[in-house]
């Protein structure tokens, strides 16, 4: 099953990049986390503001200047700071964390330019200013949602204005195999060429995932794969060889032999 929407980009160096696009689900998760963080920050600011206002009124109350200072503190804390927090939060984090906010970090997504390069500060600010339209009717992001549903790249209006897209970050450990570090024992066996690319996908999936699954399931799955591979290729498992070792050897031999097909 094609799991996610994808964007293919050809770089000027003729390198094809395939980017998994973030959809409504992951973006909604990120937005929820960011909104909760903003809410907590606003509550803290209001509490601190209330304490400061009470403090400044009490200590400066006898001065004519006291009321002015108190009102200014109130205005800054109750109007300016929440305004900056609401409008600056996304732009600030996306600029300093290269397209990610705390919510986007949690969801494992990142904003980049549609050409694949990181977005600039101006693009980032432009994208986030358009939230004022995307959020309509507040707070359900109706405009943004309809816009995202109607284009294949899941872009909201802000993304169209700034030329940005949101993609899934790929962790390095998810692309590095957890097998293949043992030296190859024995010569290449020509019978293994009977196996197809799908057989290799099956073996590699098992080898990459074997430590994550239950021991009983792991043992029975390995046994079944070994029996199937031995039957399909005609290469039996050697005496004393474990199922995992047999599958590693087969996968290494297919990979190494691929160059000579």
């Amino acid at each position, binding site marked *: 099953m094609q799991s996610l929407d994808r964007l293919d980009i050809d770089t000027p160096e003729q390198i094809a990049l395939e980017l998994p696009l973030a959809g409504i689900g992951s973006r909604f998760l990120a937005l929820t986390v960011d909104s909760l963080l903003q809410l907590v920050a606003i509550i803290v600011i209001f509490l601190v503001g209330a304490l400061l206002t009470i403090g400044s009124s009490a200590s400066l109350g006898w001065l004519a200047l006291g009321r002015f200072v108190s009102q200014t503190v109130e205005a800054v804390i109750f109007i300016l700071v929440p305004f900056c927090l609401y409008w600056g939060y996304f732009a600030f984090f996306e600029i300093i964390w290269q397209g990610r906010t705390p919510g986007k970090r949690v969801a494992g997504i990142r904003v980049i330019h549609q050409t694949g390069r990181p977005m600039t500060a101006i693009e980032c600010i432009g994208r986030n200013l358009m939230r004022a339209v995307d959020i309509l009717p507040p707070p359900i992001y*109706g405009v943004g949602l309809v816009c995202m549903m109607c284009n294949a790249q899941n872009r909201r209006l802000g993304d169209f204005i700034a030329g940005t897209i949101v993609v899934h970050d790929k962790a390095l450990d998810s692309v590095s195999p957890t097998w293949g570090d043992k030296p190859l024992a024995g010569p290449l066996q020509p019978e293994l060429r009977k*196996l*197809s690319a799908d057989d290799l996908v099956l073996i590699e999936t098992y080898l990459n995932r074997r430590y*994550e699954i239950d021991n009983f399931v792991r043992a029975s799955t390995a046994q079944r794969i070994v029996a199937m591979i031995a039957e399909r290729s005609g290469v039996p498992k050697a005496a004393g060889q474990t199922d995992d070792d047999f599958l590693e050897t087969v996968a290494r031999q297919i990979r190494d032999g691929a160059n000579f097909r």
Partner: protein
Amino acid sequence: MITVLRPLSTSELLDRTFHLYRNNFLVFVGIAAIPQLFVLPLTLGGAAMLARRSFATSIALTLSGYLLFYLAAFIAQAATVQAVSCLYTEKPVGIGKSYSAAKKALLRLTWILFLLFLVMVGLFGVTGGLIAAAVAGLSTVSNRATGIVVAFLLGGAALVLYLRLFLNWSLVIPATVLEGGWFKTSVRRSTALAEGRRWRILVVYLLVIGFTMIISFAVQMLFVFAIAVFRIRDPEHIQAALQAVQAIGLFISSSLFGSVATIALTLIYYDERVRKEGFDMELMMAGLQGGQQAAATSPSA
């Protein structure tokens, strides 16, 4: 080609939910809308009877409409699970095909959900009674404040218990529809799959339900505003108009968004099977043994 799957992160799972929904919009909306079409005449009839001041008939029609609404939702859920299953295993999908595949499970699913409802009602009764008895006992031997504090603590503990049970049972629908077990088997299966992953299920459930509720509310509000636009001010008709508009709003929102939560739960069910049982490898082996071999191309070295 064989079907290649892998464990999904929470955000990938949410994305896949909306990806399936958007790319098969008509199928999922059709599945959700068909049973609701039988509910709509009852709820609209209730509103019409209210306008004619036939209150008893109106209440009877409206109540039976809302009862049927839940039954319709269960039926649509079973068909949605079948549709997601077909999409997950890369088989062709359609509204008729999904209902035809789900029809064997309909009675079983309704019975299981009814039993779960009874269990929950029983639990509410027992825990509520225990809390009331404890508070009453404490209030007589100690002061009232202690009773209130204990009531809050016991109430909190009961809520945690309900939540845990709810999450344990959250995968019952896909488990019974796809595997065919009855009450005990399906509940055990769901509990086993949810084991250790309850927080994730809770997060996905809250986000999807929250999302669909917000959008459904917005859709229903659009219809309520229609009353203001049509300037219905007669107090005798405004209640009937509101009921009619709510019935239409409920029909549209449940048809449009009713399947999203079920898609998410079915994907969680499959994801847990991939993680815990190597279901992806099972599928690959079945694909290879079934002769669905890809051309023997060289794997990229």
